[in-house]
Structures are given as structure tokens and as C-alpha cells.
């Protein structure tokens, strides 16, 4: 049998900003076709994990492999939805321009965008119901619409592994349902999705697997095994755990107390 490397393999990953550790010793293997929710309190390092996987942030130790390769070699197989606040929405580009950026990985740095690229971009906008807005400047969109533009751009990347940082932030219920359907559809087609999510109550129905994160990997596995009071308590549970002591030392106690409440 031929060994097929998993979409994502992380080994003993440690990341810090200015010597302040944010993630330590994360070890995880995500299998193909998984729909994984990443949950944890604010400042748990969820965005940092995504950014490290993508090579945006350099780790201090450990490694990440994507389909068995270092990130650089697997660039075109990864689609990315950043946190909405991470870009400047006054930037002079239209909705279509943004979605076309998702095609650049395929088009190469110099080749012009082809008719096919435009058609794919247009179809992706259709899938998130944003086709009628394709000529709008991105700043004239509502928060939920902006989120859907990002989603369309990720779809246009036609990747095998998707990394999404809070795609549900600031969207209304209808959009949320539409996005969930989209995620399920991608999963059916054998894609792997890793989605940072904030709302624990809906995480249970949206995802198949859960990654509980709070500076360390608390747990990773099937929903039934990970969505337990014990593990959730360990992830969010304030000062009762050993974790929070470490967190308290690193991040300052007051910050942790304010932000450490689970939304249940």
C-alpha cells in the first residue's frame, strides 16, 4: 500500500512573540477529509497556530508538514481565510479583484489572469451569493459580506487544505448557515478544513472534530471524545488548572480573568 501523507502534521511546535511563549509543544496530525473546529479562549494562540502553519509566523521549535512537505512546496494546496480585521478594507480594490487574488497561486507571479480564472472567481462569488457585488469597492460592504468575499477567495484557490480564522465572526444567522453548508460541501469533496470558531454551543453541530487549544493542545479528536465538560473546563476553566498558572505568568493575570469565560 502506498503511504499517503496527511494534509497537516505538526510536531512539537513552539511559538513565541518577543520571547513570550504563545504555543508550546503542539503535536497533532489531521487526517484527510476532516472538518475540524479549533476552539479556545481569546489569546489562546488559535490565530498564531494558523499563521505558523502558513509560514507567516516562524516557530522557535518543532515543524509543520503539509501533505508531507514543508509549506513552501505545498503553497498551492492551501487556502486561507484570515481574520477579517487583518486587512485594510479601504484598500482600492473591488470584490472581483480580491477573489482573483485567490487565483494568483495557480496563475504564477507573472502570467496574466486568464478567462478561466475570471470564470472560476465569478462562480465562487456565486456560491457565496456575492455575484451582484463583484464591481463594488470592498469598503462599501457590510461585515458579513466582507467575510463572504474572503470565503469566495479561498474557494477560488481550489485547495485541498483550508485554514479559516473565524469565518463566522460578525455574520448573521442566514450567512452562517450558508457558510456551514459550504464547509460541509467542501468536506464531502474530500477537502480538509481547519476552522477557528468562537461559539462553543454551535461548534458541536458544525464540526466533526475539535481541537481544544490554550497555549498547549488540550485535546484533539472526534467531537464525542473532545466535547466533554472535563476537557472544556481544562481549556477555558480559568484559574483552576495548571495551564492558567502558566498563562497567568506569561500574559498577566487580569487579562486572563476577563477573557477566560466560555460562551456556553
Amino acid at each position, binding site marked *: 500500500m502506498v503511504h499517503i501523507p496527511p494534509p497537516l502534521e505538526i510536531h512539537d511546535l513552539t511559538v513565541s512573540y518577543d520571547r513570550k511563549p504563545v504555543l508550546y509543544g503542539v503535536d497533532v496530525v489531521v487526517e484527510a477529509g476532516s472538518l475540524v473546529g479549533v476552539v479556545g479562549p481569546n489569546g489562546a494562540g488559535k490565530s498564531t497556530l494558523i*499563521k505558523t502553519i*502558513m509560514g*507567516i509566523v516562524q516557530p522557535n521549535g518543532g515543524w509543520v508538514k503539509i501533505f508531507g512537505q514543508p509549506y513552501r512546496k505545498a503553497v498551492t494546496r492551501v487556502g*486561507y481565510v484570515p481574520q477579517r480585521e487583518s486587512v*485594510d478594507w479601504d484598500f482600492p480594490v473591488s470584490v472581483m479583484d480580491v477573489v482573483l487574488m*485567490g487565483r*494568483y497561486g495557480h496563475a504564477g*507571479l507573472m502570467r496574466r489572469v486568464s478567462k478561466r480564472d475570471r470564470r472560476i472567481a465569478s462562480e465562487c462569488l456565486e456560491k457565496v451569493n456575492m455575484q451582484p457585488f463583484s464591481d463594488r469597492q470592498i469598503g462599501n460592504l457590510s461585515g458579513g459580506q466582507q467575510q463572504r468575499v474572503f470565503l469566495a477567495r479561498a474557494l477560488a484557490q481550489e485547495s485541498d487544505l483550508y485554514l479559516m480564522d473565524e469565518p463566522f465572526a460578525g455574520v*448573521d444567522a*442566514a450567512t452562517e448557515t450558508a457558510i456551514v453548508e459550504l464547509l460541509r460541501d467542501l468536506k464531502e469533496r474530500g477537502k480538509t478544513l481547519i476552522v477557528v470558531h468562537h461559539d462553543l454551543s454551535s461548534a458541536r453541530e458544525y464540526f466533526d472534530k475539535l481541537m481544544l487549544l490554550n497555549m498547549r493542545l488540550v485535546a484533539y479528536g472526534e467531537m464525542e471524545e473532545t466535547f466533554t465538560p472535563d476537557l472544556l473546563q481544562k481549556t477555558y476553566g480559568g484559574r483552576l488548572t495548571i495551564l492558567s498558572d502558566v498563562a497567568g505568568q506569561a500574559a498577566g493575570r487580569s487579562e486572563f480573568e476577563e477573557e477566560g469565560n466560555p460562551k456556553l
Partner: protein
Amino acid sequence: MREEFFPTFDYGSVFVDPWWSGFESTFQVVLMGFFVCLACGVIGNFVVARRLALVGDAISHSLLPGIAIAFVFTSSRSLPAMLIGAAVAGVLTTVLIELIHRKSRVKPDAAIGIVFTTLFAVGVVIISIWLDNVHLDADCVLYGEIGLVPLRESFILGGANLGPLPIATMGAVALLDILLVIVFYRVLLVTSFDAGLARSLGMPVNTTHYGLMIALALTIVAAFEAVGVVLVVAMLIFPAVTAGFFFERLPALLFGVAPLSLAYSLGGFHLAKWLDCSIAGAMVVTAGALFVVAWFFGPKGGLVYRSRALGFLFTASKQKISPQIVG
């Protein structure tokens, strides 16, 4: 001080005579102004879109020590040496700003302030120690001498006289900027808009940033002797923000640079003829006036289009596409 601020306006002496009796020098000054605005406007669009307008200001000031050191080493106003000195100073400025911002608690705007004032001061010190008696006077560095450009030595290439050297250099830099933007358009676009996506596409984000800063430094140094380091900042920022009241996409903003440059250059030249004042100053005043016009009447976010009383016609047509339904 002269008696009246506004001399009597005489159409003939302001608009006709300069072209009639002194065509060559008029043409050269206007062309120089056009090249300056063109080069600065093209690079400036990316500077503004990346919210680096202050960094542009910082680089323009910290070129002083770069130029001064180049001057000390070569003891002449050799252009290649000055360009290299300026490029080094430009990169040093950005590296220092980022270093201070990343490795300390100092906020980016404060880091910019620290770096450029220090470098500028180093330039002032160098000039006052070693270059006191040579011609690199502060007024020229600060405000430029675009009116004197026609008097500079000619650029001779293969026996053909291509006009004064500063114009040839500025034209070459403008052409270089335009070519760079055309060739690296996508990389510039994506790294400016979303560095995360750019990295995820394997684009060289940091290299692009420093490349842009080098191009910015070269543009500023080629432009500074015409308009000075202070006014050059205006030329970086005005075209982008003025066109922004008319267009919402980067390519359109970039194309808007050419007509605006022509307007700044011609408008500034004739305003200066009328008021008998600094041409570079008059160019910036023209740019400022055009900005105000755009701010009032521009269809994208201009005040008139925003105000309810006058704007109902325009908003009525806009509202047709506004309602959104999510499926």
C-alpha cells in the same frame, strides 16, 4: 516684503510669454515637474495604499545623511554616488523603523519620528562639519530649485544631447518606477492588501517591501533637487488621495497619476509666473487646490455627493443596488 501679494494678473505675461519667448527653459521646467509628479505619484499610490505615507516623509528626510556622506566620500555632486547613498539611507530608515517597532514597546509612529529626526540631524551635523563651504545648501535640499534645472549640465548619450542631466535622470527614474509597477503589479497588490495571503502564495513579502522602499528612496533623491525633500512628500501623497475621490480601483488610481501630474506641473509653473514665487511651492499649492476640488465634487465620497440636500439625485441611483439578501 513686496507691496502686493497678488500682482496684477496679465494673461500675456503669465501664459503666453513663457512659451513664446523662452520655450526651451519653460518646456524643460514643466517636463521636470511632470516627471517628478509622475514618478512620485506612481510609487506614492502604493505608499498610500500601504498606509506608509509617514514612512515616505521619514525616508525623504533621512536621505540627507545618505547624500551628505556620499558627498564627503566622492567630494563632488556625483549622481551615482548620491543615488547609492540615498538608497542605503532609505533602506536603513525602514529597517531601523521596523527594528525599533518590533523589538521594543515603541509604537510605529513614534519609531518613525525617532528614526528620521535622528538621521536628519546626523545629516545636518555632517554637513556643518565637512561641507560647510561647498554647495549643498539647506534651502536647496529643503525646497528644491526646479527653476534652475535648465541651467544644469547636459546629459550626452552617444553624441546626442538629451537635455539637462536632472531631467534625463528623473525621466529614467519615472520610467523605471512604471516598469517595476507593471512587472511586479500582482506581488505589489497582494503584499500591500493582505500580507498573509501573499505569504501563503509564496510571494516574497519582505523583499517586496524593501524593494518598494528602495524605489521610493531613488525616486525621492532624483526628485529632491527639483522640489526639495519636504515638498516631495506632497507629490507622493496628493495624486493617490485626489484620484481616490474619482476611482476606487488601484489601476484607475495609477492611470490618474498622469493627468494630475500634468495639471500640477503646468498649474504650478504658471501660478509661479503670476505670483513670482517658488515653482515647487506653487506646484504643491496647485495640488492642494485640486485636492480640495476633488474632496468637494468627487463622485466617490466627495462632500457634495454625501450631503443630503444636493445628493438625493445620486443616492437615488445608488440605492438600486444597495439592498442585499443573503441566501
